[in-house]
């Protein structure tokens, strides 16, 4: 059943390409003339800085004393890896990534199913509503959640004072675990819609006949779900999870706004910011940046190699795939 997951590639066939005889050198030249500027700009704004950061990370380099810049090879990294501050930031980032992505996947699936099954009249309203968290500025979302729970202005303590453990003088941002919970709640609220929309698109690609056939064969609802629907949208799930995981790992805004990294809630991106921008330790800050970048690369690598996430699916090989019968996944 898992081989029947590729109905959407049909689209690629319809968009007829010019026949082979029309392909000329001029076309290649035109292609690069049109695509070249975008390509060059993209590289200039990312590849160059990351190369520079890698270079800077090998130096002991403070902007306050630029003349004392000195090549120290991997000492910045050794310093990082032997410092609990770094590992704490790493673990906090990892925890936030794992917890938020897991909850978002479940919640996003629920939202996607609701939208998928909803009556036509409701679908538009539901979709508009869940786009609001997606489109809102992350900093605004962080402030909204912060003010709700803040010990001075928040109403949560007041509303939920009947819950054991919550009282008027509970300072949510004065403790690691409560602070992290609110940070994660804000992240989950803001980004679940994105996952839900990707999953909804995946749901729409599950062939209706398959579900019908399973029904005829006497499959229960949960069997239809776990045996037919989920295997057939594995690709969509994987892409959604990977994108969100990579995004969650870069978390910065919410932590900056809510705790500023206090109460042991500092994440990797905030550590890099604090070293480079606040303390002007360009060398050490660059090292944190490079490590963060390496982590993201590693996650990508694992996803693509181990879980065979095909991020480029639906691009230019869609036609080739369709020709091969679309059995690639």
């Amino acid at each position, binding site marked *: 059943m898992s081989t029947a997951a590729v109905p959407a590639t049909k689209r690629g066939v319809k*968009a007829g390409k010019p026949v082979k005889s029309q392909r000329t050198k001029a076309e290649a030249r035109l292609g690069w003339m049109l695509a070249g500027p975008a390509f060059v700009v993209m590289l200039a704004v990312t590849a160059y800085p*990351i190369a520079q950061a890698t270079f800077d990370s090998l130096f002991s380099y403070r902007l306050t004393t630029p003349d004392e810049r000195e090549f120290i090879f991997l000492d910045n990294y050794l310093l990082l890896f032997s410092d609990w501050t770094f590992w704490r930031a790493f673990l906090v980032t990892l925890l936030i990534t794992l917890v938020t992505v897991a909850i978002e996947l479940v919640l996003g699936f629920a939202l996607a199913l609701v939208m998928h099954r909803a*009556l036509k009249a409701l679908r538009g309203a539901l*979709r508009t509503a869940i786009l609001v968290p997606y489109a809102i500025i992350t900093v605004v979302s962080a402030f*909204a959640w912060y003010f709700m729970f803040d010990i001075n202005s928040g109403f949560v303590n007041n509303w939920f004072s009947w819950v054991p453990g919550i009282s008027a003088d509970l300072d949510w941002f004065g403790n690691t675990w409560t602070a992290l919970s609110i940070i994660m709640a804000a992240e989950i609220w803001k980004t679940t819609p994105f996952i839900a929309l990707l999953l909804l698109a995946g749901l729409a690609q599950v062939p209706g006949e398959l579900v019908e056939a399973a029904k005829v064969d006497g499959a229960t609802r949960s069997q239809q779900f776990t045996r037919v629907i989920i295997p057939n949208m594995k690709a969509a799930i994987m*892409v959604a999870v990977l994108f969100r995981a990579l995004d969650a790992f870069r978390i910065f805004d919410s932590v900056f706004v809510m705790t500023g990294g206090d109460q042991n809630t500092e994440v990797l*991106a905030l550590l890099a910011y604090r070293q480079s921008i606040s303390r002007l330790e360009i060398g050490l*800050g660059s090292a944190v940046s490079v490590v963060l970048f390496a982590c993201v690369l590693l996650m990508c690598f694992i996803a693509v190699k181990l879980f065979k996430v095909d991020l480029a699916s639906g691009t230019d090989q*869609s036609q080739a795939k369709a020709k091969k019968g679309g059995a690639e996944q």
Partner: protein
Amino acid sequence: MNPKTKSRLGWTVVTVLVLGYSLFPVAAIFATSFKTPGDLGNQTFLPTSWTWQNYEMIFVGDAQGLFLSALRNSIGIALIATFIAVVLATLCAYAIARLDFPGKRIILGAALAVSIFPVISVVTPLFNLWRTIGLYDTWPGLIIPYLSLTLPISIWTLSAFFRQIPWDLEQAAQVDGATQWQAFRKAIVPLAAPGVFTTAILAFFIAWNDFVYGISLTSTEAARPVPAALAFFTGASQFEEPTGAISAAAIVVTIPVVVLVLLFQRRIVSGLTQGAVKG
């Protein structure tokens, strides 16, 4: 209860739940933005008396200098970054969807790689370089790095959109004697415009949302965008928290986004999902 009423009731409950989920935090900060300073500490959801005081503070009062310049910076920088990205990406996506040339996959791969790039990783070297060459705390100093946010998504979304265009029209125009460029401009641009427009909205959202670049590469009102400015608000006195002013400013910058979502939700959804999930 018959099944029909039951299902209708079920859907009503579900809809209310989803609406509550999406709108509750926004409603909370909306209510906060209308509170008087006295109300801010009383731990209730709604203000006891509604006031425009906080809005006055950010538009004509003490926080005016901070907020209005930030608003101008945000709108200007995000629009320019969006415009440049969409122009470059339109040409690029056209070539990818339409022409056959070596290196197509490399370009798409690069766009993907840039879109997952941790922003903070490029901030340190840019911070250093911008200070040296005088781009620190200027509009171009933000517009250039914003392209790393707006370009990749524009290329992916537009490539997906352009694949669905009936390109036969272009061939027909070429048969009628138009050059490839003319065919592109006259036959395809009108069809491609909705996709380009949707892409522009998505790119704008991303630029509008940025915080890391905004807070790292600016230091004054000259270029600081709204999300970064929100973190710099101060209360009327040093003993007062700027909760009211921040809430009001937050609502002001959220309104355009909500309006765009309300007007174009169908297109935004198709744009968001096309680039990422295609089986």
